């Protein structure tokens, strides 16, 4: 546990020592802030963050891979993975430490968007249910995207490859229910349950359903296990 905490701190310090983290934070805030204010003046009679929560999952599919692209790729490129992997920590600890590190970075980003609901709160009677649900949903959705990114990052030492591939996978995950154009039937249901956005929609309505959480957690477990396997693969 102590080892994981050390790794989390290291990952956070690496993120904040690199310019990428700041660019990601700033751009994400600019874009979502822009969306928020557009909506703010258009639908002023309606006091909700629906638009923000509607768009954020899409933008997260871009930004999460940018946060996670470096976690293993950079270590592989610089050779520091050799350092880490000869220290008395297990592969799983390394993966989890790095994953929690980037999730905390995401949490910081989301924290910076809190002024949006707070502004609305002062303007009138804001329904906090969907807001809390929305943030929880964003955190889980983002963490699922990040786990995809961590997995991809463990495959390559090229950060560009990592971000592009992770973005592609996140986007597929995001849009899979609409991708194939199946409107009804079992296939549609299956695709829907595989879609990150579908589960996000139900959480952001303020309904926290165990099935949605199970979905996100399974994505994370699968991706992190894959990342661990890819680290362990050098010992085969």
């Amino acid at each position, binding site marked *: 546990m*102590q*080892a994981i905490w*050390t*790794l989390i*701190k*290291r990952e956070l*310090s*690496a993120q904040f*020592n*690199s310019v990428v983290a700041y660019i990601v934070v700033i751009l994400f805030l600019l874009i979502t802030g822009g969306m928020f204010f557009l909506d703010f003046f258009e639908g002023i009679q309606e006091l909700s963050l629906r638009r923000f929560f509607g768009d954020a999952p899409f933008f997260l599919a871009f930004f999460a891979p940018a946060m996670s692209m470096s976690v293993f790729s950079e270590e592989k490129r*610089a*050779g*520091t*993975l*050799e*350092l880490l*992997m*000869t*220290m*008395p*920590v*297990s592969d799983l600890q390394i993966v989890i430490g790095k994953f929690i590190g980037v999730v905390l970075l995401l949490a910081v980003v989301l924290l910076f968007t809190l002024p949006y609901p707070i502004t609305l709160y002062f303007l009138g009677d804001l329904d906090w249910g969907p807001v809390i649900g929305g943030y929880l949903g964003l955190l889980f959705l983002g963490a699922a995207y990040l786990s995809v990114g961590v997995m991809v990052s463990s495959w390559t030492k090229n950060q560009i490859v990592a971000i592009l591939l992770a973005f592609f996978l996140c986007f597929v995950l995001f849009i899979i229910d609409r991708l194939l154009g199946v409107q009804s039937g079992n296939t549609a249901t299956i695709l829907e349950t595989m879609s990150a956005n579908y589960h996000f929609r139900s959480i952001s309505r303020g309904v926290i359903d165990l099935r949605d959480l199970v979905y996100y957690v399974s994505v994370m477990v699968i991706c992190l296990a894959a990342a661990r396997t890819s680290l362990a693969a*050098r*010992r*085969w």
Partner: protein
Amino acid sequence: MTNASIAVRDLTKAYGDIVALDHLSFEIQPGEIVGFLGPNGAGKSTSMKLLTCFLAANSGEAKVAGFDVYKESNEVRKRVGYLAETNPLYEDMIVLDYLHFVAQIRRIPRPKRRTRIEEVADQCGIRHVLHRDIKHLSKGYKQRVGLAQAILHSPEVLILDEPTSGLDPNQIIEIRDLIKELGSEKTVILSTHILQEVTAVCDRILIIDKGKLVADGSIKDLAHKLQRPQILKLIVNLTDVSTQTVRRELKAIRGVTKASGSGGTFDIVAKHNIEVATHIYELMVSRGWVLRELSRREPTLEDVFRGFTGGVAPEDAIIDPDDAFDPPTIETPKQNPPQKGELDDDEEDNEEEDDEEEEDDGTEEDQ
């Protein structure tokens, strides 16, 4: 077998079709400083990566500090300090933070961390750069930070992959002294392709070539095994005698296979098992020639190295008196102007001696 610090048996590792290690076996006892020598691509780094649990072997087994590197990897990692060939460091950190990170991950208890880091920083001579960014350090300092990282947790076994590569002569000497100092209480295994390094630091040498162990022993043992001819250097005052006469007389001595040189300086090659120095001295005395210098050159590691790794096959090294041909590399006098030049900047006196023994391109071999 049980109390060996490092025990490797039949270790084999292939990268695809390329066999990096081919049934490598050796043992290292606690407290030994062992030099791992071989040409590039011989499998030095690979075997170190296996010993530090970074890679796993295809077959065979390796034990470090009594634990299996595969099955008890965590126990091994706790007891091993490793400086990888590329000296990977988190360049975005300052030295102190980096060492703190290593100390944490190495589970050095919090109250001891500070003092231990200072201790190691002093040992490695990096105390005054503790607050600098690692990325702004010179290569020599980075190497020292890497070494500090490796010894921070006082490991039983220290595995150093080319610890002096890329350093200037002063730094090389400092790092070697440090390694020697550390070696008094730890098992050290260091790889290098710089020959004088092993001569300067190691008790024992393992030469590997194409993934196989080709030689194992002290420099003396190995030279002996190769049965290199003796090489002597003679300087005489040539006032009333010609070079030819001296050469002829020298060649007449039993065991001498070759005498060359001019201007009073001669290189003599003699069979390895016959005492010739006394006879040369007696010759000088009996003729009344003034002897200014008579010295024996110990076979250098490069002689040994070439003999074992295929530069010259060991069989060829045994000189047949009838056919006393010797490869020119061996009889070339050890003169190397460029390196001498480098040493002029050097304050270390002992370096002069070290380098007399050193082979032509010892430091340039670095790639």
